[in-house]
């Protein structure tokens, strides 16, 4: 009766008619659904029962082979090879313990590991093939296959296995694999993954996972009640992953790693092409062997790697931050020249020490260098020259030039986890410690001690900019991405990250000094002389104090415990006139740069020049 209160009256009887109509439609549709259900379940029920119980369809995922990682010459560093595995479907296997024992016997594997791999599947896992033996050789596979008829619920399968051909070589940059965890699956970028998927966990494997992984296929198999395969119903081929060609030169990488290992050093070697920013070597030691990480690494091995005090997972080339030592002196020199506080003729007297207030800062050479100009100061790494110059410049002007070379900031290499390093300023000290910067700090900084921290990659990139006349290229590891058939997907070219605001004259003076470090009399980089083809190199040594010595006190490294010994640096480029390679070496606690780090850099440069000359044709 009150239907009129809120709106206009519908025509007589229309609502009734419409509602009745709607009810009739609903009933009719529901009858249709129930009829269809009756047809499916009662009329066809037995047919479906047969397909469900007698012959069930087993869906198998066919993993896609992961794309290969190749070096710049096309040498495969990481690839995927087919491996055989044995799986057991729990609910199709009558006597699981007996079956596992039989499989262990046939494959020659330890029964305990087979049982452990099988686990205790419950719920839905009982219907799914459980992997019990991984990476089976052909003989063992043949033995299992010959007896499959008697082993209900057992099946063999081919799955690609990742092979890191050179073990721990370049392990940090290539990366490793692991299973996707439930935590990751909640994140947006992992939405296309499923629990248990193999995924890149570090290095390029992680960075380019989406390109490398391809797309899995699948097949539907008709299996009988005993789990035996009757017929292949359908197959969708997997799509292999894309190949990634790196800028890396693996022969140089091996040379660098061998040199570090031979000397027993932990540390890093970075080599760049100063003309493009391409990374030729990115070595870090100690390292780890990524083979087998994805297939269930032995927990003991994993633990020992994780707990290793030398931190093998740390990529020292871009995560290790070290005081630069005398490699810093180019910054002080550039700043002095650009600010017109010195020119190449300015002379400074080095009497072996420098007094500031009541403190004495010693030169590494106790008896002093006598009268030195800029060139001699660089060549002989005279501390006093740079103490005085640095003090005149002040720390903030030093910081400006250090930053303009790209120091104290991430270089932007593709790999994750890069550390920024540190270039101190007055404000930084005030912010961090709440204490003012004092002049003594500037004195330390101007020779590369004190608060400065650089990564080996930063040092290489900064010297590459010096070598090429002031262009900072972003270091790059990936040259191109290709489809499995070789079709180009993406290629990457040089990227200019910035230009160094320093005059050509200044660069020329600095490069002359660096060339004389190697070639000149009393040069600290004499190790780099006599290169193949008469090529001349340039470079700079560095020795970074780990423990602050009282008032510039110097102690012979051999007398110290390893962890208190100085870090040894050497950075070089060759040929000095037209640089095509820059190499930075850091030997942790190696002692003197000239003796510990320079020979390693030499090995890399020699190998590079020999390769250029075609002495390793085919590589």
């Amino acid at each position, binding site marked *: *009766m*009150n*239907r009129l*209160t*809120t*709106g*206009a*009256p*519908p*025509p007589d009887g*229309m*609502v*009734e008619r*419409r*509602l009745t*109509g*709607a*009810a009739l439609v*609903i*009933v009719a*549709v*529901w009858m*249709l*659904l*129930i009829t*269809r*259900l*009756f047809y*499916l*379940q*009662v009329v*066809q*029920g*037995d*047919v*479906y*029962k047969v*397909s*469900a*119980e007698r012959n*069930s*369809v087993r*869906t198998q995922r066919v993993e896609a082979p992961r794309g290969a990682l190749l070096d710049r010459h096309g040498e495969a560093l990481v690839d995927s090879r087919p491996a055989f595995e044995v799986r057991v479907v729990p609910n199709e296997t009558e006597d699981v313990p007996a079956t596992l024992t039989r499989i262990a016997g046939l494959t020659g594997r330890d029964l305990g590991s087979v049982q452990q791999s099988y686990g205790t599947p*419950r*719920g*839905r896992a*009982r*219907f*799914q093939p459980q992997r019990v033996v991984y990476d089976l050789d052909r003989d063992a596979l043949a033995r299992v296959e010959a007896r499959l008829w008697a082993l209900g619920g057992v099946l063999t399968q081919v799955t690609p296995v990742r092979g890191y051909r050179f073990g721990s070589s370049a392990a940090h940059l290539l990366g490793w694999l692991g299973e996707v965890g439930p935590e990751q699956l*909640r994140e*947006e970028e992992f*939405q*296309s993954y499923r629990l248990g998927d193999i995924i890149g966990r570090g290095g390029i494997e992680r960075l380019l996972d989406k390109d490398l992984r391809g797309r899995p296929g*699948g*097949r*539907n198999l008709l299996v009988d009640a005993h789990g035996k395969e009757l017929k292949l*119903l*359908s197959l*969708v081929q997997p799509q292999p992953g894309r190949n990634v060609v790196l800028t890396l030169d693996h022969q140089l990488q091996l040379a660098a790693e061998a040199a570090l290992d031979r000397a027993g050093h932990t540390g890093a070697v970075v080599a760049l092409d100063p003309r493009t920013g391409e990374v030729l070597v990115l070595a870090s030691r100690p390292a780890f062997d990524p083979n087998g990480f994805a297939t269930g690494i032995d927990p003991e091995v994993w633990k020992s790697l994780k707990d290793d005090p030398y931190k093998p997972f740390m990529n020292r080339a871009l995560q290790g931050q070290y005081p630069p030592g005398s490699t810093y002196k180019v910054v002080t020199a550039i700043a002095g020249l650009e600010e017109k506080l010195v020119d190449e003729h300015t002379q400074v007297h080095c009497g072996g020490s420098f007094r500031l207030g009541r403190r004495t800062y010693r030169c590494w050479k106790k008896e002093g260098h006598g009268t030195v100009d800029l060139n001699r100061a660089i060549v002989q790494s005279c501390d006093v020259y740079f103490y005085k110059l640095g003090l005149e410049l002040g720390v903030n002007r030093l910081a400006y030039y250090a930053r303009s070379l790209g120091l104290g900031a991430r270089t932007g290499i593709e790999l994750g986890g890069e550390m920024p390093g540190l270039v101190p300023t007055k404000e930084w000290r005030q912010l961090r410690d709440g204490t003012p910067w004092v002049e003594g700090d500037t004195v330390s900084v101007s020779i590369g001690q004190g608060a400065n921290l650089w990564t080996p990659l930063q040092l290489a990139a900064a010297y590459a900019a010096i070598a090429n006349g002031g262009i900072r290229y972003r270091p790059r590891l990936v040259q191109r991405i290709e489809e499995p058939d070789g079709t180009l997907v993406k290629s990457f070219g040089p990227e200019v990250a910035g230009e160094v605001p320093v005059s050509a004259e200044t660069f020329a003076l600095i490069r002359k000094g660096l060339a004389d470090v190697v070639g000149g009399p009393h040069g600290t980089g004499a190790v780099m002389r006599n290169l193949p083809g008469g090529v001349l190199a340039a470079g700079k040594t560095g020795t970074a104090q780990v423990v602050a010595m009282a008032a510039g006190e110097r102690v012979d490294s051999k007398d110290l415990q390893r962890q208190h010994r100085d870090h040894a640096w050497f950075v070089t480029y060759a040929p000095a006139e037209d640089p095509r390679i820059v190499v930075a070496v850091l030997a942790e606690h190696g002692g003197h740069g000239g003796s510990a780090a320079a020979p390693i850099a030499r090995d890399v440069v020699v190998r590079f020049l020999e390769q250029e000359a075609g002495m390793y044709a085919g590589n």
Partner: protein
Amino acid sequence: MQGIDRRLIQNFEWPLFTMALLVAGIGIVNLVSASPDQTASGLPGTALRQLAWLGIGVVLMLATLVPDYRTLERFAFPFYVLVVALLVGVFFGGRVVNGSRRWLDLGPLNLQPSELAKLAMILVFARILARRSSASPVGLRDLIVPAVLIAIPAALIVKQPDLGTTLVVCIVSASFLVLTRVRVFSFVLLAAIGVVGATVGWFYFLHDYQKERVFTFLDPERDPLGTAYHAIQSQIAVGSGGLFGKGFGLGSQSQLDFLPEQQTDFVFSVLGEEWGFVGSAVVLALYLGILIRGLMIAHSSKDSFGSYLAVGIVALFFWAGLINVGMVIGVVPVVGVPLPMLSYGGSALLTCMIAIGLLMNVSMRRYVF
């Protein structure tokens, strides 16, 4: 007040209440079997969470009975604005699960605003239609505002992407035309707009996987490993249930990893396999009971807002039920629409319980004037 309260209690809508609780209860039991995860108690976490949601849902349903539904009418538009705001929130900061951005993270629980959007559309349309002063048939001009009101949430939901919910929101809104008179010309034009809209949607909004589903419905052999495979497997599951089913927790098809979303979109196939024709028919009968009872409430309502509200809610249950069950038994393409009160999902269950509460509210106040 007390008099009214007593009459309300006397008029408590028992049939609807009982049928809804029965369906929801069956839903929980079914989820116990359909869930892959097992907790220490032996019960799957999914079913336990759904049980908790059901508890909250019943409380909300009873709370919905307290205010007169005509009071609620005033909140139709504010509620609509709130839901749109939540959808915008999802668009910018929603949580992504399985590639769809549908959820708002509210600490311990996740809200799926697109479920609430269904309710908001029903309330808003019931109000608009009830307030129409003219008795003349609905013309095109009358439909401009409703079209915009649908388009805003629909666009936000289709972008999540959630084709199924978008479809339900639109189709439920369109169902209001059942109670209105539409000019023939307008109807033809509407149909034309629908065709054009579907075409545009096909080319600009549908993802490839969604198009693929339509293709595979038309030609099941097209992709035997993909959606057609799921449709076939779901029919095998239902069909193999036979007359009485394989029994609780014993469905081999359901327990295998054959069905995608078997706790949500394909939950009915688990029911069909384990409880057979008898079980599925009982559930469908309960559904039908709810639908018919809803139409009766629409009929007996004393004002047009109540009628429209009831019709909208019936439409919601009808379409979602038809699309979902139809998909499971192979008479409708695979569209991701959950089965009301049976599929896992807290926001969906709450929406259903509130909707039932609204129906009961209309029913219980049919004498109170």
